[in-house]
């Protein structure tokens, strides 16, 4: 039995008259690299801000590291957050950023931080503002990891980076997750990246959780059925998430396992994470959530899929 690294109960956040997050109930077990996916304005940053204690919920609760209130001293102590655009003090040399972070925290692995910056070729004496975007991001990540957190929260960490810097950044994150057992929660709208890194997916849409679960389980419970368009409407064996209709062939993303029977005239393919995420993003009404007793393997709730004609 593992603890939940993040757990929310009916979590809602309103800015002015806009609900950034509504009735969000989640439980992400520790030990995952969890990806928070959704279109712009879906509430990804809001959820992260609530989890790291930068924002206060309008309603509901958010607990981290096994039941600690977000933003409490114990929570702050165990969570390192790298915000969007990886803010660092531009006028401070990298060495002073290390010193600053060491003074602001109970734990700080100076040796790790210095070794990593040396490996990355980031001179300690250079001002953070003079570093490239990728180096600034790596500096911010190094500061976060040197705190030896139990949860590393990253808000769109690679959005501004070029492909090489993006690759290097994610490699550092994955190394920390694999070697040190750091749980990771990262928001991203770079779907292609996630296939490689994430083993837990949370899909947000319009402030609500649409999909949440381990990637392996999600992929195993979804199939892409391809068959003649004329037959597609008759398919009703399993819940349909998304329909991509063509002249002759139609693709149905259905909630079915490899053992489920395939209707005559159809072919079944396994789905990839990107494909799955895209299908749900196109169908904001559909949902794949664990049941009320989170963590137990209950049948998924189903939403009413709407058709998208092509």
């Amino acid at each position: 039995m593992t603890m939940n690294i993040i757990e929310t109960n009916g979590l809602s956040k309103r800015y002015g008259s806009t609900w950034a997050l509504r009735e969000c109930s989640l439980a992400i077990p520790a030990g995952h690299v969890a990806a928070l996916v959704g279109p712009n304005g879906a509430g990804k940053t809001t959820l992260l801000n609530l989890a790291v204690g930068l924002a206060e919920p309008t309603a509901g609760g958010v607990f981290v590291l096994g039941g600690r209130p977000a933003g409490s001293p114990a929570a702050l102590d165990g969570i390192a957050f790298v915000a969007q655009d990886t803010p660092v003090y531009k006028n401070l040399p990298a060495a002073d950023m290390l010193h600053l972070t060491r003074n602001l925290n109970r734990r700080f692995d100076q040796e790790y931080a210095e070794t990593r910056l040396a490996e990355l070729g980031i001179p300690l004496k250079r001002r953070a503002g003079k570093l490239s975007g990728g180096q600034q991001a790596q500096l911010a990540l190094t500061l976060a990891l040197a705190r030896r957190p139990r949860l590393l929260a990253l808000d769109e960490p690679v959005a501004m980076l070029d492909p090489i810097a993006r690759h290097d950044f994610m490699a550092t994150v994955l190394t920390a997750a694999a070697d040190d057992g750091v749980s990771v929660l990262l928001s991203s709208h770079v779907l292609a990246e996630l296939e490689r890194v994430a083993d837990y997916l949370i899909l947000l849409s319009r402030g609500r959780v649409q999909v949440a679960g381990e990637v392996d389980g999600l992929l195993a419970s979804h199939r892409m059925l391809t068959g003649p368009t004329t037959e597609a409407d008759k398919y009703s064996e399993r819940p349909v998430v998304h329909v991509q209709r063509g002249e002759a062939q139609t693709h149905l993303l259905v909630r079915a396992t490899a053992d489920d029977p395939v209707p005559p005239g159809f072919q079944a393919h396994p789905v990839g994470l990107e494909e799955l995420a895209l299908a749900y993003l196109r169908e904001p009404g559909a949902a794949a959530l664990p049941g009320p007793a989170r963590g137990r393997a209950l049948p998924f709730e189903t939403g009413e899929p709407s058709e998208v004609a092509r």
Partner: protein
Amino acid sequence: MTALTMPARPEQDASLRPLPWRRMAWVTWRQHRAALGGVAVFLGAFAVYLWLTGIQIHHSYATACHPASSLACAINFTGRYGITAIFVSIFLQAVPALIGAFTGAPVLARELETGTFRYAWTQGIGRWRWTLGKLVPLTIAVAAAAGAFSVLFSWYNQPFFAAGYVIPFSTRVFDLHGVAFAAWTLAAFAIGALAGMLIRRVVPAIAATLAVYAGLALATGLWLREHYVTPLVTSNPNLPGSAWIISQWYAKGGTFAFPARGSQIINALSRLCPGTSNVSSAQCLSRHGYTQWTSYQPGSRFWPFQWIEGGWLLALSVLLIAVTVWLVRRRAA
């Protein structure tokens, strides 16, 4: 709570003692040493100027002003240095506002403007300790620097008091002396910090700080200060030179007649003593039974007034900083 949640282990949380303040002191020093250095250089350069001219002023007073009412004093001392002293005091009126705006406003506004608050407020120290650990040492530092500076200015200005060129209660110099200068600097810093938190941008926060400070300082100098203690009232025309005259008026038979300036007194004079140019207005009015009354603050009240002004400014500053810390705790991204 779900079945998966394990309660936070108490022994682990018990070890979470607050981080020592000296660590935060290093952070504050590292991040604001440039601003504090700027204040030190600015006040230091001005102090050197005050010291050099102050020596000349003291020398000139010592040689020319025996007695202070002599013509030599008026020519060689106040005539030579009076205008300079006026400019110095007017410039100094702006100094607390400048210090407060340029050191106080950026503390939070820069973090909020550049997004670094997302770094700073998610560190283990916690954001309210971070805020307090920045604002308290910085306020003490700028107030102490201002306090030391005003001691020098008091020395510089002392001969002008002695010569009766300016009274300590003068609006132009009262808040540059004693505890008031440090208190005003403290208040300006606190206004700046709160403005930075509310406005969240450095330049507008600096502008707002200057505007609010100017309004507060003017309101205090022009209206508020004279009401700290009820003024004394006298009909004796020979007031001590250090008295701060609040208002003067004429009364007849124990009832108010007209103020001692403005159109009413001119009308009264032309009615009572028409066409007579060989009697002074005072003689004319007293001949007709009018008495001049004066309300004033005696010079002996200088220090009580200093402490009153310092006290309410300190209270205001503490309140503003408390509000700022509260906002940091409450308001979030």
